[in-house]
């Protein structure tokens, strides 16, 4: 073991000037801009669902989508805030109201759709396209967030991963409900929950390890 004064010497001797991080809200905004770009690109390539305008008149649909989008935005902001050592952990509850709106709306739709369609009403035709949307939205956003929040690895990896996953899940869910239409609403709803559960689950399983790959190494040699 190296003696502490020697460690300080070598850390100071090999120090390079660093650029301070921008304010967390700005960085969250950058990430959200990326998310908006990804969704927009997907909209160009896959095409918006044909009955979007008509669906937007349905308050349940609009509220649900707004809830999902809001969850994405708030969870991203919370993730960027909580990743800093000197911010309160109470920021973690920031997306809670939006999550409540989103999930209660899903639950409500689930119930009404189930009653109107019955258990045989689920079609699987769009499953592959849905999956493509899911991967194309979720993967780049997750990676970008992982890289942007890498310095949180020695601090609060679990909380930050959870918030980040929630944000990615909510944005993916918004994208899904923008692009995939039709009778498969119930499936979309289930996809919503499934995606959220998947991202949050994967995040908590592997987030810590992934963070360690990207984590800034305390390099003594500078």
């Amino acid at each position: 073991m190296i003696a502490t004064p020697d460690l300080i010497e070598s850390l100071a001797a090999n120090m390079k000037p660093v650029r301070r991080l921008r304010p967390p809200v700005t960085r969250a905004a950058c990430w959200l801009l990326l998310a908006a770009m990804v969704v927009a690109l997907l909209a160009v390539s896959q095409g918006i669902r044909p009955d979007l305008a008509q669906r937007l008149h349905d308050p349940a649909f609009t509220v649900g989508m707004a809830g999902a989008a809001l969850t994405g935005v708030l969870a991203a902001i919370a993730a960027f805030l909580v990743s800093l050592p000197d911010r309160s952990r109470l920021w973690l509850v920031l997306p809670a109201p939006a999550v409540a709106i989103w999930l209660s709306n899903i639950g409500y739709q689930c119930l009404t759709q189930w009653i109107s369609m019955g258990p045989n009403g689920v079609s699987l035709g769009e499953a592959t396209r849905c999956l493509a949307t899911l991967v194309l939205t979720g993967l780049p956003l997750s990676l970008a967030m992982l890289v942007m929040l890498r310095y949180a690895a020695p601090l609060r990896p679990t909380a930050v991963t959870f918030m980040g996953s929630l944000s990615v899940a909510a944005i993916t869910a918004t994208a899904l409900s923008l692009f995939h239409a039709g009778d498969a609403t119930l499936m979309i709803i289930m996809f919503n929950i499934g995606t959220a559960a998947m991202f949050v689950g994967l995040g908590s399983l592997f987030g810590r390890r992934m963070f360690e790959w990207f984590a800034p190494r305390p390099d003594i040699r500078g």
Partner: protein
Amino acid sequence: MTEPNGRPPQLRLVDAAPAVPEPTIRDTDWAILMAHAQDGDRSAYQRLLREITPYLRSLAARRHRDPSDVEDAVQDILLTVHAIRHTFDPTRPFGPWLVTIANRRFIDRLRRARAQADRETPLMPEHETFSEPQANLEERPDKYELEKAIDELPPMQRKAVRLLKLNEMSLKEASTASGMSIASLKVNVHRAVKSLRKILGDRSEP
């Protein structure tokens, strides 16, 4: 033993931890030093690290009893501070930033120590007893077979495999013990293992 007012001392359910100096007074100093350090001022950085070390040590002393654990924890925190020094915002107080990093490192270290304690068992005399040859009678025939096979090897190979494999010497030790060069030891032990594999029949590949 009584206190000045004549009453017996009250029992307190707290650790006799050393009082931790509050960082508030030096907070602005440290924040300024860190801001300079972020801009590349080495002497400011060195002064900052030197000044926070006793404070970190007093924080660590509340969590660890073993002085070397305390020192390890302090170094861990210093390294973390170094790695994420760009996350400090000079417009905000330095103390909470430092204390959060310190606490997260303490929690991580304690968690890791517990995981290690769950996974590992201390080496007891009985573990050594059971690994001794006398306690493992059924392995003996193998051993005789191996000894016989080694005796059949050419002398250089025999010496190399005895020193490096049976006596578990390092290449350097074996080289001083036998007078053979490290390269020739490597070659001979490689050949020896190859021919032993042939003599004993390769059991690793069915």
